[in-house]
């Protein structure tokens, strides 16, 4: 499945680029998380990782679709 992965904050430092094309065998957010944590083990050291699709947080069971833009959200720290 072709996805675009967008990363911010510390995730942007760990992943190869702010915007990053993936061609990957995954169904759910959970699959994507597992795959990313294997390829980029530093992600496992983070306090949390969340994912957003279409500007909404999505849980592990969320089913990804071809060409989704997925945003990886490390622990937020606004304010």
């Amino acid at each position, binding site marked *: 499945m072709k996805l675009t992965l967008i990363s*911010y904050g*510390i995730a942007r430092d760990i992943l190869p680029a702010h915007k990053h094309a993936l061609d990957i065998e995954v169904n759910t957010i959970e699959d994507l998380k597992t795959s990313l944590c294997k390829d980029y083990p530093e992600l496992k050291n983070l*306090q949390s990782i969340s994912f957003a699709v279409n500007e909404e947080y999505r849980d592990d069971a969320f089913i990804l679709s071809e060409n989704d833009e997925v945003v990886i959200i*490390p*622990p*937020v*720290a*606004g*304010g």
Partner: protein
Amino acid sequence: MIEIKILSEPLLVDACSKKVQDPAAGGINIFVGTVRNQTKGKAVLRLEFEAYESMAISEMNKIANTMQEKWDCFHICIHHRVGVLNIQDIAVVIAVSCAHRKASFEACQYAIDTLKQTVPIWKKEIFEDGEEWVSAHP
């Protein structure tokens, strides 16, 4: 009225306060978050903020909607700054007006507490000898 903005220029408290004034309002509460000069005793030189802007605005709108539902707020103004901030610079201003003051305090505290949990904005602390994304690691 709800006004949510992410800005790269300095934030103005008066601007937010004026936005939420209303002839029927008796109380305005404002939270101003400023950049502290230290974290856990270590001197901070400056902060760098970045936002996933479209989603950050959407999440701040959710917060404002909840404030209106739960506390009957008249108007809410949230301005968040991004980019490089120096010590004492304002990172966020949240202003809310209500008929009575108690609601304004509760709604404003809810807003800043929730903003820090859900809004996709990140900050990096720059020290003399390095830098660190805030809250990234356990």
